[in-house]
């Protein structure tokens, strides 16, 4: 359980890295945000704010990828200054995007022994001051390689960072979260859906026992349109055949392939300073490759707990797995949200969000 949350609302990020992994583009990797979390924690410690950041939730309100939209999308590139001989510099392809994000960070207090806890209800002035300092520190940092633009006034929205204590009582925490999530609308939160990959593999193995996880990932990452027939296998009587992806029916959610971390290519790490040209000679080094899974963009009003929103980094040095894990639970099959039942599912909400 998180002690408190630090919310950095409506950050305008300019020219963030749009290439999330060697195989995906369109949004920075979730590891960019866990990296930001650690960097922010270090800078906060330097600034005298004793907070420990444990997890990060990402809600995207707006995005503009710097691409040209044709049948194939291509990145808008930059031309670099000429070299010393006056010749044009080589063009290095890079993907950039502008983002409007809300970051939700799970926070615990780094408390000196015998010091009174500061992260308690009733200490609002201190919390507001810390949140303000965090916003100041973040303004000078890079988010996923992009610059943080100054906040713009947005009528009716909080644009200043805020810190709030998470209630200990589960019921109080749930109603608290219901209040918070309303502020993050309209927008989409990125949550993990590892179960999609597992289900797809199961599905593929039914007809092709030799199918691998990569096959399953590629299969689920695309639309597999096919002509739909009725139960008897007969084409519709009017001759108008419906083409659909049977595994991605209407209402199955905005599921996207993402990278979630790194897996080691070797059994053990090289000792510090053993590898030439390493970025940091004081730390052990291990060669890794990206780990792929699935994520889903989900409107925050569909989330019912803070933990469902958060991504937490997870390290297993023996297995060589350095990945981020989302707290979002895999939906139970018969509870899947379809256009027919989502209204009834949402009925228990007192703050149902009306689409127009």
């Amino acid at each position, binding site marked *: 359980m998180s002690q408190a949350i630090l919310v950095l609302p409506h950050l305008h990020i300019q020219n963030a890295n749009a290439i999330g992994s060697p195989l995906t583009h369109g949004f920075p990797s979730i590891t960019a945000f866990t990296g930001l979390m650690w960097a922010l924690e270090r800078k906060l410690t330097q600034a005298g704010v004793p907070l420990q950041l444990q997890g990060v939730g990402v809600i995207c309100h707006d995005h503009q990828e710097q691409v040209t939209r044709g049948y194939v999308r291509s990145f808008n590139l930059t031309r670099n200054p000429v070299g010393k001989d006056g010749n044009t510099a080589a063009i290095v392809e890079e993907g950039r995007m502008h983002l409007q994000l809300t970051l939700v960070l799970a926070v615990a207090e780094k408390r000196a022994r015998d010091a009174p806890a500061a992260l308690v209800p009733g200490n609002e002035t201190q919390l507001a001051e810390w949140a303000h300092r965090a916003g100041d520190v973040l303004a000078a940092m890079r988010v996923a390689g992009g610059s943080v633009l*100054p906040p713009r006034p947005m009528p009716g929205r909080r644009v200043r960072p805020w810190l709030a204590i998470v209630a200990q009582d589960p019921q109080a925490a749930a109603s608290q979260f219901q209040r918070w999530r309303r502020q993050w609308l309209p927008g989409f939160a990125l949550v993990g859906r590892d179960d999609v990959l597992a289900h797809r593999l199961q599905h593929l193995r039914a007809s092709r026992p030799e199918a691998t996880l990569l096959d399953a990932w590629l299969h689920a990452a695309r639309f597999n349109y096919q002509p739909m027939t009725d139960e008897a296998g007969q084409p519709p009587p009017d001759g108008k055949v419906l083409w659909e992806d049977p595994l991605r029916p209407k209402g199955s959610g905005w599921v996207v392939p993402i990278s979630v971390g790194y897996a080691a290519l070797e059994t053990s790490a090289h000792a510090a300073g053993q590898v030439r040209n390493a970025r940091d000679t004081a730390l052990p080094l291990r060669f890794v490759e990206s780990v792929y899974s699935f994520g889903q963009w989900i409107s925050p009003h569909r989330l019912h707990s803070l933990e469902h929103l958060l991504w937490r980094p997870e390290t297993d040095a023996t297995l060589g797995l350095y990945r981020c894990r989302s707290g979002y639970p895999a939906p139970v099959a018969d509870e899947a949200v379809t256009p027919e039942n989502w209204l009834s599912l949402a009925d228990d909400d007192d703050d149902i969000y009306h689409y127009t």
Partner: protein
Amino acid sequence: MSDKLTTASVLAFERKLDPSDAVLYAGRWEDRAQSHSWQPLSVQTKSVRGTISNRLKAKDQDPVKLDAAIENPNLQTVDIAALPAQADTLKVQFTLRVLGGTGTPSACNSAPYRAKLLATVQGYVQQHGFAELARRYAANLANGRFLWRNRLGAESVAVTVEQMQGGGSVKTWDFDALSLDTRTLLAINNEAKGLEELGQVIAGGLAGSGHVLLRVTAFVRQGAGQEVFPSQELILDKGAAGKSKTLYQVGGAAAIHSQKIGNALRTIDTWYEGAESLGPIAVEPYGSVTTQGRAYRQPKQKMDFYTLLDNWLLKDQAPPVEQQHFVMAVLIRGVCLVMPVEQGRSNDYALH
């Protein structure tokens, strides 16, 4: 092995002058006070039937073929941005964040080198401060160099720089940009009222541990309906775009790339050979000027950034004061040295 200091194999600096994209708005000169309600300028697409006018290859110069070729129309689709017929003034607005910590590498894998580098930068700051560089950056805000082609042919250009704090402006400076010369950064520009003060604010940001935020607004009286010039996108696959010129837009509004603003702001290098005739050029490690396809700080002249930095740090030969300013300006610009670990974004600027 001796204890001789060697260059870190991984060394990168983040930029310390961080401009945003500049967004274009249109309105009337006399309504400048209400400019917050001006409409953003949109980019239009137009298709034109042009003529063939490019130089033809020798083998095509058979008169019959030539006639046939040049009689063909040259159809093309291009993006264009122009002021509306009832608006005569272009407003260009961006924010500039001035960050402290110059000389602190964002990546460096050699602790002794890092220590030496910090000591050297500290020595420079104690001796000279950032006053000289900051005044030059301030001059480039005041003279409207960041407007690029929009500055040419303008009837009048008014630049307002505000220092922002907590969402509001705490200090304001106004400049008449056209009265300031972009070719000199020394004599004439220093006469502009308030420039010294703005320079001190920027110097404070570069030296401080926090950051200084400036909002720059320029009003350019162009004449109603005149064409204006946002940045052009560099697209390798022109076929996909379906047009031969694509202009940059942010959220539907025409804009100038942040890289291009940054390039204009750091056009302060008057310490290279030949500066008397050419005027200031952008701070680049090799003094390269893309529009001329030339580099003015060739390694053989021993005036390029890498030679100067190595002499200063590794051989303890402090360069002349002007070249020290240049080395610091490159560190403020942001640079990725030796190994291409991360692309120094600040050295990218868009094709125009």
